């Protein structure tokens, strides 16, 4: 252990190697049901060269590395070591915005950059980044995009990986490359910029796509030390409308219509439990809101930026209102308990401290997967049935449907808030989470981001993909040091 520490200190310096018990404890668990496991050290590299050295060294010593970029709390078990003697590589200190280019609408950032930090820098240039639903203030943008957290706007998700474009990655074998377009040029960003290359194209760099080796990988293939991001123009007009319904299925045709013609700049469906949690700051408010809000709401954002924004927004407002009417729905700027403006602000804003889903009961467990919009009601019905069977209060069950990849699929997310202090309830939720995760899979839910128990569920269904993934793991992480134990069958 001491020799390892010595090596780590040699790479990142003594102040960046932490073995304080409390700190190690804090990294040993998260808010999920993942089994706690204390790491040996936490190291905080300051640059990509140190990361590369860390990985090389870990390979030599066969030390498992667990990359972490966001600040706590974590919720998916991916940052909790699965094996003993791990070293946490905490990249939150690498938080430089390396470049912002208005002309190319590109930004390059390090792992520790947060949404607020980035949005502020982008706003100065008249830009913004498509966000996932109400990220935590200390959430790493890099992790968020690398782990494919769904964006609120599927319309501009031309590539599944949007807004992520290129990256710098140190694979588990210790080699460091640029992915995407950047991999074709000299391995130096400044030189590439001088040549007019702004890390725009994500595919590649050659006949394979190495970004896809690290995305959704929970750090099990390598460590990413910068990513380039495609940015959007900052809206000069930004509105959100709300379409209430009694059942989620009533909103499907409406949402299909909106997404198909590529109107709107944000589009999602929530049930009232989810929406109330998103909007409220206290348990009481959540309860109040739940009593006021309609059972289901489709939220539709509309924005305009520099190109005749008033005309664009006005046209889309009227057209989308027509779509709603065609579907027998109302297209409203506010509902009892919520205005479109509030929903918009909450959706794209960050939440400080705890996760917004913790407000209701202190803890929550998510189950999310990918399916298509027309199948969501099957999963929702099944989830409600399972909740009833388990004795879980269905009025607390949050549902969030986020179209992605231009509407060809949706991210369907169930949230099960619970009181972590209530052992019985926690146990019940854990059991429900396990049963429901299996059930969703058996109904065709696809765990593209297979955290925790989902890895086992998903990979067991697909022996050939698992085999190829293991082959790839063997190539990129031959010593099995990268977040060891993740994405493997048990």
């Amino acid at each position, binding site marked *: 252990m001491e020799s390892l520490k010595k090596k780590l200190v040699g790479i990142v310096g003594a102040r960046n190697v932490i073995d304080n018990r409390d700190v190690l404890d804090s990294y040993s668990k998260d808010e999920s049901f993942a089994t706690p496991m204390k790491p040996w050290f936490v190291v905080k590299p300051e640059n990509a060269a140190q990361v590369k050295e860390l990985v090389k060294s870990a390979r030599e010593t066969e030390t498992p590395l667990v990359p972490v970029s966001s600040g706590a709390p974590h919720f998916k078990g991916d940052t909790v070591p699965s094996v003993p003697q791990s070293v946490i590589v905490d990249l939150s200190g690498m938080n430089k915005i390396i470049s912002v280019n208005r002309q190319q609408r590109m930004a390059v950032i390090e792992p520790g950059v947060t949404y607020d930090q980035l949005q502020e820098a982008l706003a100065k240039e008249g830009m913004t980044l498509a966000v996932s639903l109400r990220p935590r203030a200390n959430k790493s943008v890099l992790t968020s995009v690398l782990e494919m957290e769904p964006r609120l706007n599927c319309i501009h998700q031309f590539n599944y990986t949007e807004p992520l474009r290129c990256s710098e990655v140190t694979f588990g074998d210790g080699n460091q490359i640029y992915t995407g377009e950047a991999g074709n040029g000299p391995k130096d960003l400044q030189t590439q910029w001088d040549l007019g290359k702004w890390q725009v194209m994500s595919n590649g760099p050659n006949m394979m796509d190495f970004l896809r080796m690290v995305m*959704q990988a929970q750090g099990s293939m390598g460590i990413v030390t910068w990513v380039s991001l495609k940015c959007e123009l900052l809206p000069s007009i930004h509105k959100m409308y709300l379409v209430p319904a009694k059942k989620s299925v009533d909103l499907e045709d409406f949402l299909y219509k909106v997404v198909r013609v590529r109107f709107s700049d944000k589009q999602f469906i929530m049930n009232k439990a989810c929406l109330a949690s998103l909007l409220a700051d206290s348990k009481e408010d959540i309860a109040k809101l739940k009593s006021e809000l309609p059972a289901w709401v489709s939220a539709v954002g509309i924005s305009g930026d520099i*190109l005749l924004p008033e005309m664009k927004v006005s046209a889309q407002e009227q057209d989308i209102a027509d779509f709603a009417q065609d579907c027998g729905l109302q297209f409203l700027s506010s509902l009892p308990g919520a205005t479109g403006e509030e929903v918009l602000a909450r959706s794209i804003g960050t939440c400080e401290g705890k996760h917004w889903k913790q407000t209701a009961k202190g803890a929550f467990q998510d189950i999310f997967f990918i399916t298509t919009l027309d199948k969501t009601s099957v999963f929702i019905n099944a989830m409600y049935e399972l909740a009833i069977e388990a004795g879980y209060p269905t009025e607390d069950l949050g549902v969030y449907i986020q179209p992605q*990849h231009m509407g*060809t699929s949706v991210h369907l997310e169930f949230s099960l808030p619970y009181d972590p202090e209530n052992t019985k309830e926690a146990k019940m939720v854990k059991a429900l989470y396990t049963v429901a995760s299996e059930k969703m899979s058996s109904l065709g839910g696809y765990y593209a981001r297979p955290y925790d128990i989902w890895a086992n569920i998903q990979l067991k269904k697909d022996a050939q993909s698992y085999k190829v993934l293991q082959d790839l793991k063997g190539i990129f992480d031959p010593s099995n040091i990268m977040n060891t134990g993740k994405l493997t069958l048990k």
Partner: protein
Amino acid sequence: MALAREVYQAFEDIVGNRNISEDIGVCETYRSIPSQTSAHYGPSKEWTPLPQAVILPGSTEEVQNIVKICNKYGIEFKAGSTFWATMAYIGGDNAVQLDMRRMKSIEIDAKNMAAVVEPFAIAGTIQAEAMKVGLNVQIPGVGCSSSTLASSSGWAGFGPASIFMGANPENLLGAEWVLPNGEILRTGSLGSGDGWFCGEGPGPSTRGILRGIFGPAGSMGVCTKIATRLHPWPGPKQFRTYGKAPAYKADFGDNFKCYTLCYPDWESWARSVQYFHESDVLYIGHRQFNMFGRNLKAFMLNIITDPEKQLSDLPELLKDPEIQKHNDNMKHDYQVVIAGMTKRDMEYKEKAIDYILEQTGGWKHEMMLEKEKHDYALAYMTRLGHKNLNYVMCGAYEGTFGLSGNVWKTIQVVEEASAQKRKWETEHTCIAATGGDSAMGGVSSLGGGGATGWEFFTNFDSYELESVQGTSDMVDENQAFHNKYAFGPDFCRWNSDVRHVNGYSYTQEEHDEMFAKAPQPWIYAYQYKIREAVNPNHLCGSYLRTLSPGKLEGK
């Protein structure tokens, strides 16, 4: 060298005797002549190697069984669908050619905007089927006779509509893929039987080894089915046309407009492109008709839009001062199509174009507003059924330069490139003298803008050896320009490091020599390692660029 009888029999047992041939005449027609197509390793009159047999599989299972036999007997194989591009053809003597023609099904999920297609489903047929349910498919610049599966899984796949519809790698959802070792990999949600809707994951994406910025061009087994994302089509359920062949014209209704937008200089041209990259206004955007060259495009447009006219009318047309004026007015141009999803949307898009023109000093080209020319261009741009006009002037074309990427960089060098090509037009006779600048390509090669995909159309005579050789020499000279501005290989030489000019594959030693010098050589070493994992017998030629890792590890 004929296949051993037991091998031939094994193949025949899989596909039936009607679907395999080793007849010399049949096999001879499965050789490519790079001067007669887009080989991307330069024009040459050398034929690719003769296959030992041609096999027509009818299902994924048949493909898998064929590949297993190939592995058992160490026989190389390569699959082709349309047999247009040279990359579809084998690169060695002990090889069989798979012709995927029998697999052409198209299934559309209208609600979720996706089509599941087999290799010989060309973009034109997919589009026709998609339009019936109000959807459209992204057609690569090469035209609608190309296989959508091939452009999605095997090669570049961007086109005029990419700004709105994305490039085909972006559109790729699930894929069913017979690996070179004979195993079947189904990517994304397909692998677990959950559907075609997602091509990524679980976890890291095996789709990442299916293709990169380019696909492996058949060098990594056979993709037998893919799902591709479809896009809204607010037009008629049929591709409605009027007019006589060959100048068919679109009759889509008032919510479609096709404009040739022109600008006083490249700087304003680029500013307008940036506007379009930053908005959702365009349905299609492409610098298309400049393929006929800066000096000839308006004249050629008068020929191709009129069913009665032909190339022989060109000399007479060139005397027309009115057309000359039109030609002069379209120096810095591109074509766009806007599609109104609703009446209001159309009004907005029309106004947005006017606004952009106002901001940039641009104009809508007058001649291209004439109804017949407008309707012709709209049909052309929407289906890309006339893309083979590439070849009309001389019989062959190659793309050279290839100023792809950052539009602001492109415009700084386009005139220098034009001058260099013009020099070859005036000092030599190998290529058609069309006016230097024949740069054409997408307003964006990426969904939502961000990068152009340009090439200079260079027309030559594939029948005449001097013309073929001269064109090749010109491309060699152009490479120096590419090196100077860090554009990578000339468009015409993109494949020069994956196949010899004589059509044969490179050896590993030759590839090692090349890719050890790459700025980031590990990329090629990883490609080597991945090939070793799924193609241990190296059965699909040398299109996959690989570098022996030992060269980097000091072994």
